[in-house]
């Protein structure tokens, strides 16, 4: 069996000022990407993912959620971005996105992610981008408002043998 060290930090940032979107655009040479977020937003909402600056209605998503008293699920098709776990304005929430085989050019791209926000819920999401292009840019929007100062974002790359 082949072997080699991987799970490489590609980029990390802690926001020094509020901004609506955090973008990554230099992450070639890996098999999978993992994006780890710990943050808050200016208006409680669901962060959004877009790839390759595609703002068309080429995304869909589903979620599973538990809020301490009940479980729920939902989803939507033909969206202009992938919706992900909701964040609040003060209590830090975490989202870990897994983008497997992001650079192949034969399959549409699927993102699975887990989210937790202690004052609200724990959720899991799946999102689809109906495009076989390799992902070359990731735009993570705050869901209408801004990412607050101090929010952190770290992108890792994993390379399969």
């Amino acid at each position: 069996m082949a072997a080699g060290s991987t799970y490489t930090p590609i980029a990390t940032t802690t926001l020094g000022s509020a901004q609506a979107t955090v973008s990554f655009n230099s992450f070639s040479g890996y098999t999978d990407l993992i994006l780890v977020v710990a943050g808050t937003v200016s208006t409680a909402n669901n962060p959004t993912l877009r790839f390759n600056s595609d703002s068309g209605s080429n995304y869909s998503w589903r979620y599973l959620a538990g809020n301490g008293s009940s479980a729920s699920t939902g989803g939507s098709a033909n969206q202009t971005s992938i919706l992900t776990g909701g964040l609040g304005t003060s209590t830090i929430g975490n989202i870990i996105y897994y983008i497997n085989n992001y650079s192949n050019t034969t399959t549409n791209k699927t993102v699975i992610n887990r989210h937790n926000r202690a004052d609200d819920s724990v959720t899991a999401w799946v999102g689809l981008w109906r495009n076989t292009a390799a992902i070359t840019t990731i735009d993570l929007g705050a869901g209408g408002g801004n990412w607050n100062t101090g929010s952190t974002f770290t992108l890792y790359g994993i390379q399969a043998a």
Partner: protein
Amino acid sequence: MIGAIVAGTLSAPTAPVTNSYESIATVTVGSGGSSSVSFSSIPSTFKHLQIRAIARASGPYTYDQTNMTFNSDNGSNYSWHQVNGNGSSVTANGGTSTTFIRIADETAANNNANCFGGMVIDILDYADTNKNKTARSLWGYDDNSTGTIGLRSGLWRSTSAVSSITLVCSNNWLQYSSFALYGVKG
């Protein structure tokens, strides 16, 4: 692994510094499809294992199953539980004394072309000979009309170190499905 982050900026990516997560082997399904994928001769030098995959199956359904066994044990020594949501209903169920861990589902032939499900499977303390073995997974698929996101756990009632893993599709995985095994050091 998270603790190994080295601070940097988006405009100045950090240099690779981690050596606690290693790629062990990858299997990508060819044009003929495949009903199973195996990883054998897994070294016992890691603390945990992780399988990261994309998959699409051939069954004439909206989804197929990925079932997992260890060390070629096909006895009724496994159990599993899950919770999942398909956008309209939440399901929680499981199986006991099963011959496999139903560790994930993936999209299948009745779903839109080119859509593949994603899965991340963790097998914890796989080499510890004092414990039965547990696994967990996050998996999901969506094709813009149907889909499911789910969490699963599984148990293998054996204290043997895991030296081989077999993943079996309830039909066939289609071309471009890919399964990669990684080791996480302790």
